[in-house]
Every structure is written in structure tokens, then in C-alpha cells.
């Protein structure tokens, strides 16, 4: 049973299609309730985006397909949350 609730991805993408377009495309996917895309670095031809998707049943393959179809490349998966609840990162003494 697929129970991924949240994914945070580091993506390198061209300026076009815009993040508005990409956010809409991702939010249209089944199992996704919300999408947040923020740009943290802009280059001449490309930009680095932090993509957060949240839902009840996220299918990573579908998310990846949409990102790739829009010219993006996933550099890393920075956070993955699965289960019946959404558990945030817990601070430890080492932090």
C-alpha cells in the first residue's frame, strides 16, 4: 500500500514552463492535496526549485514523470514522509 504523505525534492529546471504551470500540473495528480514550489537560485538558463508535494497517497513515479516532462531533473529527495500521520523532522540534542 502506497502511503507517502509528503515529498520534498530539489529540482533543476529551465525557466519555462513556469513554476505556476508546474505547480498546477502536479496538483492535478491523483493523491496530491497541495503543492509548493519555491525558487532558491536563478541561473541564466535554469533555476533551482524546492518542490514540496503533500497528500494522502503520493505516487512518486507520477510526480517524477510530470517534473521530467516539464524539463526538470530531480537532484535529490530531501524529505519523505509516509504513514497515517505527517510527522515533521524531530529536533535532537545533536541539532
Amino acid at each position, binding site marked *: 500500500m502506497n502511503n507517502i504523505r509528503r515529498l520534498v525534492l530539489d529540482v*533543476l*529546471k*529551465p525557466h*519555462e*514552463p*513556469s513554476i505556476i*504551470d508546474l505547480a498546477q500540473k502536479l496538483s492535478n495528480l491523483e493523491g496530491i492535496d497541495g503543492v509548493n514550489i519555491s525558487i532558491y537560485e536563478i*541561473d541564466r*538558463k*535554469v533555476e533551482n526549485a524546492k518542490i514540496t508535494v503533500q497528500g494522502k497517497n503520493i505516487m512518486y513515479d507520477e510526480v517524477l514523470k510530470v517534473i*521530467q*516532462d*516539464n*524539463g*526538470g*531533473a530531480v537532484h535529490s529527495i530531501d524529505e519523505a514522509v509516509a504513514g497515517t500521520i505527517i510527522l515533521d523532522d524531530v529536533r535532537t540534542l545533536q541539532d
Partner: protein
Amino acid sequence: MGFLKRRLRQFKEYDDIAEIGDIARRYFVMNAFDGVLTIIGVLTGSYAAHVESASVVISTGLATSIAMGISGLWGAYFTEAAERKRDLDELENHTLTDLSETRIGRASRVAGFVVALVDGLAPFLSALIALLPFFFSVSLGDIYLSYYLSLGIALLSLFGLGAFLGKVSRENIMLWGLKMVGAGLLSIGLGYFLGGWEGG
């Protein structure tokens, strides 16, 4: 209906990515202008040489329009394809991925096709419209009436193109229209005098 709507939405998406509309607009005006001026050349030359057969003017004009259409189609397609491939390659170097089968790659291919179509059809159709009176020359009677009407249509088309540019640049539409008509009048004047002089 749903299919058409989907296609239109897809085209709009491609337009946003590849900026097809802006480039097609430039090509349209540039090549329609070329088409009208070329046909003005054909008409003025025929007039100066006293060609009184409508079929001769039509076949010369049509052959010229077709050649311009094919030239536009071929030239724009390969130019766009080369330029867009270069852009895509450059983008691929940045993302380090193959973008040919993505929306960007598809938009790039559609752009080449649409721009070539506009580039080919603009001179062909604008020239054809200017030639229209010659198709009705039997009903019009005097062949010279066809010449005047054709030149009138050509100048009107030039005015229309100028007005369109005026609208694009958000400036005086009349002034832009007249600027374009100026090119047509210059072409008619020079063509007539040089053609007449050549013909003795």
C-alpha cells in the same frame, strides 16, 4: 469539440514555452510585406511592358507567389529547426538531461512547423489577394482596370500591415500604415519609370 479545445490549450502551452506567437507575428508581417512588394513588381513590370493578357499576368503572378511560398516554408523551417535545436542543446547542457521528448522539446518542434507555415503562407496569400482582380478581368472588361484594382489592393494590404504594426507598437496606426504604403508607391514609381525606360 473537446478534441479541438484540448489541442488549442496544448498549443497555448507550447506558445508560452516556445514564444511561437511573437516570432510568427514578425515572420507574418515581414513576409506578407515581401509578398505584396514582389507582386507589385510583377504588376508594374507587366503594366510597363503593356501586357494585356490576364492569363499571362496570372500565371506570372501565381508562379511568383508559389515560389515565394515555398521559399518561405523551406527557409523558415530549416532556419527555425537549426536555431531551436541549438537552443535546446544549450539548455540540455545546463540540465544535463535529454529534453527532446519533454514539453520543451515538443514545443520547439511545433514552433518550427507553425512558423514555417506562417512564413510560407503569408507571402503566398498576400500576393494571391493582390492578383484577384485578374481572375475577374473578363467581367471587369478593361484589363487596365484589373491593373489599377490589383495595385489598389496591394497598397491597401500594405496599409493594413502597417496599421497592424502600429497596433503592435501602440503608436499611430495611420502613420504606420502610410509608411508601408510609401514603400509600395516607391516600388511602383521606380518599377514603372525604369520598366518604361527599358521598354523604350
